[in-house]
């Protein structure tokens, strides 16, 4: 996966296991706390944490659970959140990002919406290979 934020090889500053909806709350609270410590505006925190919430829920609902890792780049300019699951994967990532596309009876705004609320956003997935979503926010 390309690494524009320069976080590859860096140790995660926090890890959260996603199994139940309680863990989605824990994930967004962890990200919100880090961004507050970094002094981001309420507006930017709200936008990014909303994106994290969407993606964390996807991992539970579609991926059967997963793992979130939070990274800071070397120059501390970006916070990157990576969400991995071992679920069925997404056949067509471009289609899944399309506004209004849904497989679970939702509004189909989750993935595309999360992309819009992040600075960097990438999905790596293949059928049977699980899904990894990497999203970042400028600090």
């Amino acid at each position: 996966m390309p690494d524009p934020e320069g976080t590859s090889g860096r140790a995660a500053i926090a890890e959260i296991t996603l199994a139940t909806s309680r863990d989605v709350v824990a994930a967004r609270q962890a990200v919100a706390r880090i961004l507050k410590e970094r002094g981001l505006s309420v507006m930017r925190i709200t936008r990014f944490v909303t994106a994290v919430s969407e993606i964390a829920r996807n991992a539970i609902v579609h991926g059967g659970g997963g793992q979130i890792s939070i990274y800071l780049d070397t120059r501390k300019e970006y916070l990157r959140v990576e969400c991995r699951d071992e679920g069925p994967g997404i056949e067509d990532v471009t289609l899944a990002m399309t506004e209004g596309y849904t497989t679970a009876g939702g509004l189909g705004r989750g993935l595309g919406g999360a992309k819009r609320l992040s600075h960097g956003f990438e999905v790596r997935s293949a059928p049977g290979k699980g899904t990894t979503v990497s999203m970042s926010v400028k600090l």
Partner: protein
Amino acid sequence: MSGVTSINLVENALLVSIQDDVTDTEIVALQETLSNRIAKERVKGVILDISSLEIVDTFVGRVIAQLAGISRLLAAETYVVGMRPAVAVTLVELGMYLPDIRTALSLTHALSQLRRA
């Protein structure tokens, strides 16, 4: 239903305070609890206080819209109060305009509208 969300009768309305650490499971359970109470207590309105919510994502937004739909079928109007400005901006960015929901900036405002109803 966990203790994180409270439902109180205020005048002719049910005041529902949703706490920030509410989970998807709990907010779905709230739909059932609330619809039963609307029918039983024959209230004119439901006031959803979301001032504690630091974020509202598409799932919670959808549940709030459904709560408003259920209330309307049971002859009660839903008011959402205390939405944070950053939450409003984010919801619009997500394309969620919540058209069927009446919003009020404060509880006082929502109650005064319900008195006139």
